C-alpha cells in the first residue's frame, strides 16, 4: 500500500517549568498512514496525541525521529511537506472572528498563495456542502459553535491537500451538533477521498469513521490495528444466566471443569451464573450441564462490548482475556 505519512521513532520532551525535569510527551512513536485511509489517533488526556499531530503539521519540531509526508521529510523541507497537509486544531480557534464565513475562506486561501478567483468555485461548493451558504456573510463570532467548527473543517478542505488532520473535531459540541459534524465527516470521507487523521475522545466518531486506530498512552503506541480487528479481538462472549433454582454439586463440579472462570451466585429462587465462552459452540456444553438437572433458565443476556470499552481496556493495559473476565 502507498504510505502517505511515515512517522518513525518520534520523540518529544518538554522541560517542566522551574524544574530540571523533562516530560516525555512522545516517546519513540512509529506508525504509518496509507493513502486514502482514515486513521484514528486515540489516547487519554496527556497521552501525546496533540503533540504528535502538531509535529506532523510542522508546528512542533521533534527532538528526534522522522516524519515524511508524501515522501518529503518535514524537518528538511517543511514548507514542501505543508503543501500536502491541512489541519483543524482544537475546533473554532482557527478562525478570524471579525471576518465573515466567506471572507475567512478567502483569506486562508490567500495565505496559501491562492487567488480569490482560483477558489471561487471551490468555496461555493464547500459552502453548499457544509450547509453554510445562507451564513456566508455572517461574522464568525455570531455563528454557533457547531457552525464555527464546520467552517474550520471547510477551511482545511479548501486547500485540497492530500492529508487532513482533525484534532478533536467534536469536542465541546452538544449532542445534536456533534452528530451533525460526525455526519459531515462521513460525507467528507465518502465524497472527497482524502487521507484523514482524526484525534478524538468521541469513540462514536472513531467507530463510525476510522478504518484503523493508533492508540497512544504515556507517549507510546500501545495498539495499531484496524477497528474491525480490535472489535473482533475483544468480541466478548460473556453471558449472564438467571436460573430458577440452585445448581447441584455435580453441575457445579462440571462447570468448574469446563468453565473455570465462571461466577456462580446461588439463590433458592433465582441463582445467577456468569460465564465467558472462548467459542460460541461452547454454549451447548453449558446447556448440557444445565440439562442434567433440568435447571430452569429464566433469561440469558449477552454482554456487548463497544469501542469505548475496548479503548479503556487497551489504555489500562488489559488483554482480550482480561476484558472477557471483567465483562
Amino acid at each position, binding site marked *: 500500500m502507498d504510505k502517505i505519512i511515515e512517522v518513525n521513532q518520534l520523540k518529544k520532551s*518538554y522541560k517542566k517549568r522551574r524544574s530540571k525535569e523533562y516530560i516525555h510527551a512522545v516517546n519513540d512513536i512509529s506508525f504509518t498512514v496509507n493513502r486514502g485511509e482514515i486513521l484514528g489517533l486515540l489516547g487519554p488526556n496527556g497521552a501525546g496525541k496533540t*503533540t504528535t499531530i*502538531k509535529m506532523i*503539521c*510542522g*508546528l*512542533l*519540531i521533534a527532538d528526534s525521529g522522522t516524519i515524511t509526508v508524501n515522501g518529503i521529510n518535514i524537518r528538511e523541507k517543511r*514548507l*514542501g511537506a*505543508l*503543501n500536502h*497537509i*491541512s*489541519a483543524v*486544531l*482544537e475546533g473554532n*480557534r*482557527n*478562525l*478570524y*472572528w*471579525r*471576518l465573515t464565513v466567506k*471572507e475567512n475562506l*478567502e*483569506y*486562508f*486561501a*490567500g*495565505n*496559501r*498563495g*491562492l*487567488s*480569490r478567483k*482560483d477558489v471561487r468555485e471551490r468555496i461555493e461548493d464547500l459552502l453548499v456542502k457544509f450547509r453554510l451558504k445562507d451564513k456566508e456573510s455572517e*461574522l464568525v463570532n455570531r455563528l454557533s459553535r457547531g457552525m464555527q467548527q464546520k467552517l474550520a473543517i471547510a*477551511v482545511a478542505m479548501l486547500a485540497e491537500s492530500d492529508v487532513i488532520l482533525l484534532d478533536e473535531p467534536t469536542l465541546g459540541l452538544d449532542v445534536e451538533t456533534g452528530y451533525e459534524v460526525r455526519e459531515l465527516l462521513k460525507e467528507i470521507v465518502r465524497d472527497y477521498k482524502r487521507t484523514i487523521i482524526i484525534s478524538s475522545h468521541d469513540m462514536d466518531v472513531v467507530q463510525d469513521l476510522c478504518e484503523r486506530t493508533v492508540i497512544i498512552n504515556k507517549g507510546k503506541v500501545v495498539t495499531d490495528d484496524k477497528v474491525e480487528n480490535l472489535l473482533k479481538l475483544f468480541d466478548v462472549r460473556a453471558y449472564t444466566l438467571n436460573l430458577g433454582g440452585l445448581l447441584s454439586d455435580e453441575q457445579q463440579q462440571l462447570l468448574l471443569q469446563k468453565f473455570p472462570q465462571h461466577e456462580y451466585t446461588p439463590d433458592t429462587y433465582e441463582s445467577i451464573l456468569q460465564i465467558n465462552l472462548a467459542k460460541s459452540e461452547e454454549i451447548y456444553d453449558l446447556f448440557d450441564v444445565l440439562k442434567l438437572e433440568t435447571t430452569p433458565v429464566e433469561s440469558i443476556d449477552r454482554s456487548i462490548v463497544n469501542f469505548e470499552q475496548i479503548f479503556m481496556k487497551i489504555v489500562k493495559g488489559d488483554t482480550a482475556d482480561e476484558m472477557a473476565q471483567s465483562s
Partner: protein
Amino acid sequence: MKWLNLLKANTRKEYLELKRYLPNTIAMLFTFYIVFLGLFGTIQFIGDPSTQDVNTQYVIVNYIFWFLTITVINSIGYEVINEGMRGTLEQLSMSPMGISRIMAARLISTTFINLIIVIVLLYISMLTSGQWLNIDVITIAPILVLTLISMFGVGFIIAGISIILKQVQAFLQILQFILMGLTFVPLSLSPVIAYLPFVKGIDLVREVMIDGLTWSQFTMGDFMLLGFNAIFYFALGLGVFVYCERVAMSKGLLAHY
C-alpha cells in the same frame, strides 16, 4: 503570483478588520488629532515665537512618523500576541507560504493602509497649523521605501519576540516611547544615532519636507547609510524572527491559549 495573492489577501483582511473595528479606528484617529492639537498649542502659547514655525513643522513630521512606526511596529507585536491567543497563529504557521512571508505581507499591507491614513492626517495637521510642508513625492518616496524596509526589520524583531514571550504587552507599551525617541530626536544631536533603525531615513525626509532638499543635495554617504540601514535591519529582523520561530516550534509556543 503566489506572493501577490498572499499580499492581496492580507491587505484585504487588514482593510476589513479596520472597517469592522470602525469605532476603534475613529478613536485612534481622534486621539492622534487631540494629541497633535496639544503639541501645536504648546508650541503656540509656550514656545519661542522666533522658532515657532520650524518647531511646528518638526512636530508635524516627527509626530506623523511616530504614528506610522507605532501602527507598523507595535501593532505587529500585538497582532502576533492576539493571534497566538486565538490559535490562528498556528493556522498561519501551517501555510506552505511560511509564516515569515505571511508576516512580511502583514507588515506591507498594514503599512500600505496606515500610510493612506497618515497622509490624510498629515494634511489635516498642516491645515490646522497653517504650516504647509514640501511634499516632494519623487524625492520622498524612495527614502520612505528604504526607511520602511528598516522599520519592517524592527517589526520582524518585535513579532519574533512576541511569539516566544507571552507577557510582552508591558514591553510593547514601553516600545512606544523608544519609537518616539527614534522618530523625534534629530540627527544633529549625535551622528551616531544614524546607525539606529530608520533614524537616517526620517532625518532625510525631514530635510526634504522642512528644508526643501532634493535628491541631488544629498551626499553619497547619505545614500550609503540609508541603504545599509535598510538592508542591515531587515536582515537582522528576519534572522531574529526565523530564530524565534524555530525556538517557538521547539518549545511549542506557537499557541498561547
